[in-house]
C-alpha cells in the first residue's frame, strides 16, 4: 500500500490525459469536446461524493444501512436497465425484480460459502459489480427482444393464429435474447487473464496483494458474474416479453 501515491498534484497533472481526447476531438472535428469535459466533471463529482459516503458507511458498519445501500444500487441499476428498453410498454418493476433476485441470490451464495462477509466494505463493492454487469446484460436482453419482436412479427402472428399461447409464440425470441445477454460475460470469462486483467484482480495487485491470492478473488468474480447475468437476463426476459402482448394474447401494434 505504501507505493500507492496518488497525490492531489499528480491527479491534477493527469488531466493532461483528458486533454489528449480533447485534442483528438478538436483536430478531427468530432464535436466531442463539450461531452468530454461534461463526463469528466461528472465523474469527479460522483466519485468524490461516493468516496466520502463509503468512508462514512464503512466507519458506521451497520447491517441495515448496508442493505439499504445495496437496495439503492439495485434501484439505480434497474432505472438504467429500464431506460435501455426500447419498448414503450416497459415496466420499471420488472427490471427491479430481476436485479433484486439476481443480485441477492448471488450475494447469498457468496455469503453462505463464506467467500464474503456481511460487512459494508465487502458487500457494497461486490453488489456494485454484480448490479452493474446485470444492468448491461438486462439492457442487452431488452434490446434483442425488441429487435426480434419487430423482425419476426409475422412468425409470432402465425403461431398465435395456430392457437399457441404467448410463451410458445415467443420462445425462440426469448431464448435468443437471454443468450445474447449472457454472451459477453461468457466471452469475457474465456479471455480473463489473457486479454485483460479485470478490475478486482488489478485492484488487489495494485494494492500489493500476491497475484496468486488475487486470482482467487477474480475466479470468484467470474463465477458470480456468470450467475448474476444469467439470473438477471432470464428473469427480466421472462417478465418483459409479456409487454409485447395485450390481455387477449394479441401482439400489440407499435
Amino acid at each position, binding site marked *: 500500500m505504501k507505493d500507492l501515491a496518488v497525490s492531489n498534484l499528480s491527479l491534477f497533472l493527469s488531466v493532461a490525459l483528458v486533454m489528449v481526447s480533447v485534442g483528438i476531438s478538436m483536430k478531427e472535428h468530432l464535436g466531442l469536446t463539450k461531452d468530454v469535459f461534461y463526463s469528466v466533471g461528472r465523474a469527479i463529482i460522483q466519485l468524490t461524493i461516493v468516496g466520502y459516503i463509503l468512508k462514512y458507511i464503512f466507519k458506521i458498519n451497520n447491517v441495515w444501512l448496508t442493505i439499504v445501500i445495496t437496495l439503492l444500487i439495485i434501484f439505480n441499476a434497474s432505472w438504467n436497465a429500464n431506460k435501455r428498453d426500447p419498448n414503450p410498454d416497459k415496466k420499471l418493476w420488472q427490471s427491479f425484480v430481476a436485479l433484486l433476485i439476481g443480485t441477492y441470490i448471488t450475494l447469498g451464495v457468496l455469503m453462505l460459502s463464506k467467500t464474503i462477509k456481511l460487512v459494508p466494505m465487502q458487500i457494497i463493492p461486490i453488489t456494485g459489480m454484480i448490479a452493474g454487469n446485470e444492468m448491461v446484460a438486462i439492457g442487452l436482453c431488452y434490446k434483442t427482444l425488441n429487435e426480434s419482436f419487430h423482425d419476426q412479427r*409475422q*412468425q409470432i*402472428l*402465425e*403461431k*398465435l*393464429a*395456430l*392457437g*399457441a*399461447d404467448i410463451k*410458445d409464440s415467443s420462445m*425462440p425470441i426469448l431464448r435468443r435474447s437471454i443468450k445474447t445477454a449472457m454472451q459477453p460475460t461468457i466471452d469475457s470469462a474465456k479471455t480473463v487473464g489473457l486479454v485483460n486483467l479485470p478490475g478486482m484482480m488489478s485492484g488487489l495487485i495494485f494494492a500489493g496483494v500476491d497475484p496468486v491470492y488475487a486470482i482467487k478473488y477474480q475466479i470468484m468474480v467470474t463465477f458470480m458474474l456468470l450467475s448474476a447475468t444469467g439470473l438477471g437476463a432470464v428473469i427480466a426476459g421472462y417478465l418483459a416479453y409479456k409487454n409485447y402482448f395485450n390481455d*387477449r*394474447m*394479441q*401482439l400489440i*401494434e407499435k
Partner: protein
Amino acid sequence: MILSLKNVGYRVKDKDIISNFSLDIATGAFLTIVGPSGGGKSTLLKLLANLISPTSGEIDFKDKNINTYSPTNYRRQVSYCFQQPSLFGETVKDNLEFPFKIRKQPPDQSKMEQVLESVDLKPDFLNKNITELSGGEKQRVALIRNLLFKPEVLLLDEITTGLDNDSKEIVHRLIQNVHKDNTTIIQVTHDNDEIHQAGQIIKVAEGKLVK
C-alpha cells in the same frame, strides 16, 4: 350462425379500416370476400381470427362474444392461414410438430405423413429443410399446419396468390375436401377460379360491406 359480426368497427390512428360492419356466417358456409386492395379484407379476417379486436361492435362465435373464449382455444377452432406464410424452425417436421406441441401432445408421425399426402407431398418431406422448399410447397406446408387438428372455421387470406397452377389445384382440392368435412371456409381472394368455387360472395371496399 357460427360467426356474427355486429356493427364491427376497427379504427387505427383516427382512420376507419372497418366501419359499421354486420354479417352473419352460417355453419358450413363457403364465403368468399372480394374487393379492392387496401379495402379492409385482411383486417376483417384478422378480426375474425381474434388477432386484433374491434374498436367498436362485437363478434360472436356460436352466439357468444369471442372475448368470452380463451384466445388460444378460439384460435384453434377458428384457424387463420396467412398470405405468404413463414415457416418456423429448420425442417418441415418442426412446423408440423408445432400444433402438437402447443396442445401438449406427442407428435403423431402417421397423422403428419397423412396430411402431407393430402397435398401431394411424400412422407420423406418431413425431414426436408424449409430453405429448400418452393413457394408452392411452403404454402402447402403452412396450410396443412392449420389442418392437422380440424378447425371449425378456416380463414384463408389470398393463400394461392403467386402459386403455380399445379400448387393452386392441389390447394383448391384440399380446401374443397375440408369444406365437405363440414368446416366453414372464409376466404379472401382475387383469383377468378376461387371466386367461381364460392358458395357465397361478398364485396368489401373502404372497410364496408358493398351490397
